[in-house]
């Protein structure tokens, strides 16, 4: 219809809001990847021998692997020798308080809307901020420490809590798991670590902000969350990157280990630079996220709002090993212009009476491609298990694509798996109805899209939900007129 064409044409991107570069001096490794670079990174971080070995094993395995070609995305071959694998903002010795941190760096976070000092004082969210590759500051450490909660940068955890790291690193996502996880295992430079002791309910949201700053730099952070028996934590992750016209690689790994009766809620608002409206530049977001419900009655819930990146390749998954354990995946993925997303989840039911729920809402606009890829596997032993999947796609215009690839595999007869999928177009009649009440076209699209994504947005903590709603609107802004 005429109106639809109109919507498509007008669906040009607004300028990316976080596209500034900080003027920080960086201490970087030379370009390229080799055993020497792996050693360089490990040495730079004064790591113990076992960790270097772990990295080298991952690296050697990686050299035997090939990049996955099955995702429904296309991009020119990545030259892994043209990437800088380590870049740290130059600083004096490691900071012990906020006052010692480079003011430029603090300004960077302020621009991101996360003033650490403010955060510390007001919001009650503990923040660990990772800029390029190094974790910069962890607020609230003392307060959490009183409860026995550990929340710190990965490097610090390696130094201060080597036993925990040795025990759990790679326990959910092995170093050799897949191409990008292996790459990450070889060269990861920092990230966050979190341990919640048995019976402790973490009294505040824990939060990590990631930002890629230096040019030609890949970011390979690693997050490890260990929730001991009967504990609870809600963890937030936000990301941004400056505008650049070459693509940048982001290959992170997140591992969650939940013991008996533990519950972990992990929420992501991903807003990496998506490239410009002609598809130039943007982040390749190739991320492995997996949680293990190791004990009975454990629960892991992933919520993601994916609005950024040129390419997203990401399947936050749950391995439901404990009996009666629960896995959830709530996702909104928006693509506009030339963005491509291939995202979804894997729910692996191993324990008895395990339950999983998948709610995926894809929104495609412009010339973008948006795929849901989900696997539900119910093992023979996982009797009386349940899965419910709802995968909806919303199309804005007719030059974009929405695809659904569900893989369902049930090995026993007492389990039940339900899958529902819908595809709809944003209706001209819906937009007109809004306009007739005085709402302009752009706000109408935002209203309709937020309504569509509501079930997922409702899963987010309040402050994040508001931010996510704004981001959805921003991603689609300039789309109509």
């Amino acid at each position, binding site marked *: 219809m005429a109106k639809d064409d109109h919507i498509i044409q007008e669906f040009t991107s607004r300028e990316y809001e976080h596209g500034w570069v900080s003027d920080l001096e960086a201490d970087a490794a030379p370009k390229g990847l080799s055993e020497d670079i792996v050693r360089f990174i490990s040495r730079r971080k004064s790591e113990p021998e076992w960790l270097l070995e772990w990295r080298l094993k991952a690296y050697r395995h990686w050299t035997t692997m090939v990049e996955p070609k099955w995702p429904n995305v296309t991009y020119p071959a990545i030259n892994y020798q043209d990437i800088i694998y380590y870049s740290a903002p130059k600083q004096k010795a490691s900071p012990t308080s906020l006052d010692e941190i480079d003011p430029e760096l603090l300004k960077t976070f302020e621009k991101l809307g996360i003033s650490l000092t403010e955060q510390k004082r007001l919001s009650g969210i503990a923040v660990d901020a990772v800029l390029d590759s190094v974790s910069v500051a962890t607020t609230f450490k003392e307060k959490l420490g009183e409860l026995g909660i550990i929340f710190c940068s990965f490097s610090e955890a390696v130094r201060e809590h080597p036993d925990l790291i040795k025990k759990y690193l790679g326990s959910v996502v092995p170093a050799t798991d897949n191409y990008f996880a292996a790459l990450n295992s070889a060269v990861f430079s920092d990230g966050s670590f979190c341990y919640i002791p048995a019976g402790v309910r973490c009294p505040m949201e824990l939060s990590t902000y990631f930002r890629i700053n230096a040019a030609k730099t890949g970011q390979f952070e690693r997050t490890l969350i260990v929730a001991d028996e009967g504990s609870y934590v809600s963890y937030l992750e936000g990301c941004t990157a400056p505008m650049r016209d070459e693509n940048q690689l982001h290959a992170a790994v997140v591992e969650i280990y939940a013991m008996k009766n533990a519950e972990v809620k992990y929420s992501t608002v991903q807003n990496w630079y998506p490239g410009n409206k002609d598809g130039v530049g943007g982040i390749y977001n190739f991320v492995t996220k997996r949680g293990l419900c190791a004990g009975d009655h454990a629960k892991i819930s992933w919520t993601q709002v994916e609005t950024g990146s040129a390419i997203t390749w990401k399947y936050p998954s749950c391995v439901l090993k404990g009996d009666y354990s629960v896995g959830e995946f709530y996702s909104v993925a928006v693509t506009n212009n030339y963005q491509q997303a291939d995202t979804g989840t894997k729910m692996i039911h191993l324990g008895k009476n395990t339950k999983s729920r998948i709610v995926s809402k894809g929104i495609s606009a412009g010339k973008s491609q948006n795929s849901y890829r989900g696997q539900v596997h119910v093992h023979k032993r996982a009797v009386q298990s349940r899965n419910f999947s709802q995968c909806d796609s919303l199309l804005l215009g007719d030059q974009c694509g929405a695809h659904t690839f569900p893989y369902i595999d049930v090995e026993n007869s007492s389990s039940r798996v339900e899958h529902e999928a819908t595809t709809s177009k944003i209706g001209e009649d819906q937009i007109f109805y809004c306009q*007739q009440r005085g709402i302009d076209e752009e706000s109408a699209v935002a209203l309709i899209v937020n309504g569509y994504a509501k079930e997922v947005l409702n899963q987010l903590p309040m402050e994040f939900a508001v931010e996510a709603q704004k981001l959805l609107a921003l991603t689609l802004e300039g789309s109509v007129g």
Partner: protein
Amino acid sequence: MLKIQNLHAQIEEKPILNGISLTVNAGEVHAIMGPNGSGKSTLAATLAGREEYTVTQGSVEYMGKNLLEMTPEERAREGVFLAFQYPVEIPGVSTINFMKTALNQIRVHRGEAPLDAVAFLKLMKEKMKLVEIDQSLLNRSLNEGFSGGEKKRNEIFQMAMLEPRLSILDETDSGLDIDALRIVAHGVNALRSKNNATIVVTHYQRLLDYIVPDFVHVLYKGRIVKSGTRELALELEEKGYDWIKADLATAR
């Protein structure tokens, strides 16, 4: 308030309105009747600014301005309200949220500050009472799973909230039970004033017992072929449209 002159409109090359002229003054109620497919909803949608309907001839003046040059949302903000014959569903958006967004955009347009939550709630409660609508309905996704009558009542609730100057009610009475009809008509009458006007599109004279029109027009094949007072509606109820069609045939 509204002056339509020789309005022609078409959709996809198919002419539907073939020269409509109609003047509506502040304080008046006009009823538009006519057989199915005669163009009543098309007229309503054209006045509201639906893009699919292309105006090929004629003019529409509203409050001294050229209505046809305004975007649909500008028309709405300037006080044109259309109660839809088939209200649209918007999943995940409650009527309350929808009205908050609409009302505040209208207020900003008028140079007024957006209503805060308390003031909005107060206004809402007042209007809920007027059209006897339950808050549980307003908390649900807009029109999703609403019964036919609930949708219509919700349209009138929205009209009450936005306090338009010119309301066009497109078959708001169809689908309403007798009690609901009375309530809706009561709402419409309560909102009537010497400063606003109403165009009621209906098939049934019964509604006009409650909302008493000053003028009744018969639309047929995209033209107003007969105008009169209340009595015309009674006559139509009794005799149907055939006599008008016959009159037209002999006149030709």
